[in-house]
């Protein structure tokens, strides 16, 4: 386990969700669930973040801001789609203004089910994401050393 996985920073973006999953994300960060004890910190700045937590079914106007937040995050990064809306559009999938899932706009690594997703399952999703984050980092380092940079160097 590297320092990256020991203290991942998350950024949260609400892409047309009903708020239910969003407040459960915040609940996971506050006492009782308290993921901060594992070193997971919520940041408002995408440039500081390793993990993007996304909720909601993504509407027309939200596509660009969501893509912007994703693009601003440094590599390696992991995207977690939280709630059933973020996976398929859920209860809103037949609405005229929704895209039907985060993966229609940006690549998603982990899907967390539920409406609203429970804090326990959100924490489980983040833990799963940490493994993926490690793999992505290892792949990046390997690619870097193949191209001549030393392991551990910023790629």
């Amino acid at each position: 386990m590297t320092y990256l996985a020991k203290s991942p920073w998350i950024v949260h973006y609400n892409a047309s969700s009903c708020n239910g999953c969003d407040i459960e994300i915040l609940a996971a960060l506050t006492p009782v669930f308290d993921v901060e004890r594992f070193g997971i910190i919520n940041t408002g700045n995408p440039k500081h973040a390793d993990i993007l937590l996304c909720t909601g079914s993504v509407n027309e106007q939200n596509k660009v801001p969501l893509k912007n937040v994703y693009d601003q995050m440094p590599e390696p990064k992991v995207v977690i789609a939280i709630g059933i809306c973020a996976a398929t559009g859920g209860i809103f999938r037949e609405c005229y203004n929704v895209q039907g899932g985060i993966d229609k706009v940006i690549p998603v690594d982990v899907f967390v089910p539920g409406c609203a997703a429970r804090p326990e399952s959100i924490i489980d999703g983040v833990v799963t994401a940490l493994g993926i984050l490690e793999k992505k980092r290892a792949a990046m380092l390997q690619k870097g050393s193949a191209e001549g940079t030393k392991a551990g160097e910023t790629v």
Partner: protein
Amino acid sequence: MTKQIIVPFGPQHPVLPEPIHIDLVLEDERVVDAIPSIGYIHRGFEKLVEKREFTEYVYIAERTCGICSFIHGATYCQGIEQIMNIDVPERAQYLRVIWSEFSRLHSHLLWLGLFADAFGFENLFMGAWKTREKVLDFMEETTGGRVIQGTSKVGGVRRDISSERLDRMTKDLDDLDREMKELTDVFLHDDSVRHRLRNVGTISRNDAYHLGAVGPTARGSGVAIDLRKSGYGAYDRLNVQVVTDSCGDCYSRCAVRAKELFTSTDLIRQAVKKIPEGPIDVKVTGAPDGEYFMRAEQPRGELVHYLKGNGSKFLVRSRIRTPTLTNIPPLIKMLQGCELADVPVIVLSIDPCISCTER
């Protein structure tokens, strides 16, 4: 004249749990104008009434907003019941009041926490959310859901609360009251909090009234409007106290919500005392034919569900007007003339709920 610059605020911003965009027109550090643009959460589910049966639409109405979900569901059901002249059993009406007031407690505690975070008091934020978990535990115990309950249905409610649980509730409420008292004492009497909030984002009683402020935003400016006073559901049999404050600044709006926590626990106590035994639902036959404006008090203010049916299983029109929408014009008025550093606090002081607003 000083040169004007425009600073964009949102859609992604640390203090905003939801996306809203405001263009702040600045002269030096002072905000001279604020231009909001919304639409980041618009899903367009009001049109889904044409595809979902009116009994199924309750679930969608509930997901208008995850924070005040129960009240949305209950208001929709009450609207349909009014069109169809359904006599809802007393016990169901009281249960709706109990869950509505617990929703209000959870919403206000959530807001107090976010507000503390916005003015930079991290510890208080965590404290408020810790207390809120107790309210959510109750929700989960009685309905099965933490934030989305799904217990309201056309013709009554889906679940009952056993009388033993109701008996125990008085003690639980006393514990909750004690914890909330400790919490609100900091909000109301701490010098640094007062210093941060007094005379920030002031709006006069007249402006608040004429710009259509509702809920705690209006009550913080001394406009005593509270839909619960109109006595929908079982509220006409309970003694509802309207909390107001006269200054109209961020501190007043915070004080109104802090004090409303205790009126909510008081209402639950009254409801627990008066709740009669009996059935919790009635069988619903037929379909709604007619239209109705159902108004209810949400944690953020007056909520309106307009429903129109033509005698078929599918409604013709549903229109939801939520409190945050009417609170945006007063917000713009508050922002004019404030300092840039106060913008996050002022925006949060109306308790914006963007999912509701844009539907």
